[in-house]
């Protein structure tokens, strides 16, 4: 029997214990993988496009109206490629309880600012030429059952000159994205459409998105923009986009901290379990191990045998745990995208899982393996 055969036969000893331990350890990995998915929703994306963008908002709160004239002043700061201005209006479609947030953007610079939104060239032209057009994500299209080219009427808070709050839009374009962090339920409309016809709140926006040429100048340019309005009311707060998103996310509480605390607790208790299992198995198999020693196996190869068995069990458990988690995450993604945008399993997650698996298998079995290697031959064989 070769060494591999020995390992295999070792795992067949008291199968129920092996199976139960594998279930426990696998569940710990399932939890770890799910927490990694959820954590993605709470960390800011670090995409290349995003590092070229600065976000400005009013200094007192995120909904402070900013005069539209600020955009022209910002555009004159050196190092800036383009300025996009954004208004945000909640809207409802018929009696659907889910609300849309219409982002009213200056369309001319929109696709240049957000290259990660992929739109078919024909639809892109349609969106740019039609003032009433609506650019939506796949998820929104599916949720409301809209088709391209359809005219939809949305209820908003914006009153036009006649006092009506319903506005008609043409669903002209749909965006896709390769980046899992971009939600599939954003909605964009033309800023001009609202602004030309609204009764009050004219010529104000809630944010500016500035595209810059060189990401390494981001902080300097942000400071230059804020200096422009230091004595105006409202003042502006400008941040590189990555940082702005991160700041907003910290308001939800320190998710990363809570998640790692739970993961650590679960893993510590599972480590205790696995260590105990290997300790028990070595104790129960001491006759067998002592016989192997008597036959001429070196202590280190016996220790290796125990550790290899532990590694096999841990890797198998980690594999089924994370594959199951991946399945669950795939199933959940489209269903919870509106609550937790960006929920997905990151590539770097595999690295975390492999490292945790290695550490787990070594930590759970090193002491029992050491004990196995030191079994006193004579005493153990006399049992």
């Amino acid at each position, binding site marked *: 029997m070769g060494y591999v055969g020995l390992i295999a036969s070792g795992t067949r000893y008291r199968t*129920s*214990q092996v199976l*139960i*331990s594998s*279930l*426990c350890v696998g*569940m*710990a990995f*399932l*939890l770890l993988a799910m927490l990694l998915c*959820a954590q993605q929703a709470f960390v800011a994306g670090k995409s290349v496009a995003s590092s070229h963008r600065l976000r400005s908002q*009013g*200094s*007192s*709160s*995120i*909904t*402070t*109206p900013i005069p539209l004239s600020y955009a022209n002043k910002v555009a004159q700061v050196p190092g800036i490629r383009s300025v996009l201005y954004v208004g945000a209006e*909640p*809207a*409802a479609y018929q009696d659907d309880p889910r*609300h849309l947030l219409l982002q009213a953007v200056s369309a001319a610079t929109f696709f240049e600012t957000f290259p990660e939104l992929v739109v078919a060239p024909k639809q892109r032209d349609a969106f740019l030429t039609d003032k009433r057009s609506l650019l939506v994500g796949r998820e929104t299209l599916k949720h409301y059952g809209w088709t391209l080219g359809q005219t939809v009427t949305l*209820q*908003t*808070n914006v*009153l036009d000159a006649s*006092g009506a*709050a319903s506005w008609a839009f043409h669903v002209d374009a749909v965006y896709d994205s390769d980046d899992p962090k971009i939600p599939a339920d954003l909605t964009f409309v033309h800023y001009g459409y609202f602004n030309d016809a609204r009764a009050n709140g004219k010529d104000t926006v809630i944010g500016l998105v500035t595209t810059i040429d060189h990401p390494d100048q981001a902080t300097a340019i942000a400071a230059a923009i804020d200096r422009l309005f230091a004595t105006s*009311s*409202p003042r502006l707060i400008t941040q590189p986009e990555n940082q702005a998103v991160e*700041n907003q996310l*910290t*308001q*939800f*509480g320190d998710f990363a901290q809570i998640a790692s605390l*739970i993961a650590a*607790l*679960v893993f*510590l*208790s*599972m480590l*205790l*379990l696995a260590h*105990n*299992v290997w*300790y*028990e198995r070595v104790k129960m198999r001491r006759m067998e191990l002592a016989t192997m020693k008597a036959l001429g196996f070196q202590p280190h190869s016996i220790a290796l045998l125990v550790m290899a068995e532990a590694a096999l069990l841990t890797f198998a458990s980690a594999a089924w745990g994370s594959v199951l988690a991946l399945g669950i995450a795939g199933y959940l993604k489209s269903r919870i995208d509106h*609550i937790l945008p960006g929920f997905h399993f990151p590539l770097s997650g595999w690295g975390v899982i492999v490292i945790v698996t290695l550490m787990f298998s070594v930590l759970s079995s090193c002491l029992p393996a050491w004990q196995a290697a030191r079994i006193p031959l004579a005493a153990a064989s006399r049992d």
Partner: protein
Amino acid sequence: MRTSLQQFWSLLVLSIRSMSSRTSSCLVAIVGFAVTSAVMVSVLALSNGLATFWRAPASGDIALVLARGSLAEEGSRLSRDAAAQIMQAPGIRQPVAASLSSQLVMTASLPRASDRKGVSVLVRGFKGGDFPYRAGLSMRSGRAFRHGVDEVIVGEELARTLDHVSIGSWLPLGTGRFKVVGTFGETGGGRHESEIWGDATQLAAALGAAGQTSSVYVTLTEPQAFDAFAGYLSKLPDFSGTAIRESDYLRRQSDRFRMVVLVPGLALVLVMSLAAMLATVNTMLSAIHARMRELATLRAIGFSPSLVAAQIVGEALVLGALGSALGIVAAMSLLHDQSALTSNGLAAMAFSLSVSVGTACATIGVVLVFACAAGAWPAVLMSRMCVADALRHT
């Protein structure tokens, strides 16, 4: 019956005594259950905290009017003549002027105490009238704000989580500076404790919302008057708002948040409970493995199979009880009366976490159910063993 109970008791004591020879495997089960119950207590405490935050008022006779299509007050803006139009509606308690309260809800950014990072908080401005003493609302320190002056009062829970907020300090809100003249609270806690209150006109000027109204609170003659009230407003031509019962509004907000906390939280607890249960199955299997001859001897001298099985389930329950007690005590010492600060994306939500007796009992109950299930399989194995074979076991 009496004798079998006595027998069961003595067997249980016997197996508990034997635990000391199997410390490490018992510890695994206890730690597993302790971690599970600590997480469950935390999830329930968070959910209870959110429930108190959005707690509905006792009286059902308050309605609020929001702009059509608005999910929450902070996003709602009513037209200037809305209050005058609402006054004409039926069902409002007399005198009408005193039953109507126009409010302006805005957000402002203030540094929080833990790390000085800016959090967005709700600022509620009141138009005219006195401090709206509603049922359960009271000043906790200082005095109420005066109209026409740059003064604000701060919710007690929010004041604890923000940086340097005390009576006499100045808060930078938008372009203005407001003096804190008091803190207020709600019996049992609630959403208003996360807000800053002041005069609408002064706050609106500083926060760039001059002349706007978010919502109008209306006290109705009786809860049943709502249908007539809402019906009148919905038929009103060129009226931009819709009426909603305050209790429905709060339920709508709370359902959204409790789902976000409870569903993933309880899913986490379920998976952890299953893992702890399996760990205990392992422990119990090792226990019967180690005590095979002892248990077989018990059977041989006349103890019934069900008694021996019950003893194993009993031992699992003892492990579960120990573990859950440990977990609850640990979670309580960490959480009890701590303030949590979270956000709904637009504004901060501050509330206290507390571990109620009900939460602790529910946790112990769930853990005991899982512990019982963990003991069941080894118990069945044991009751079916062949006594002669087991006695030969080495």
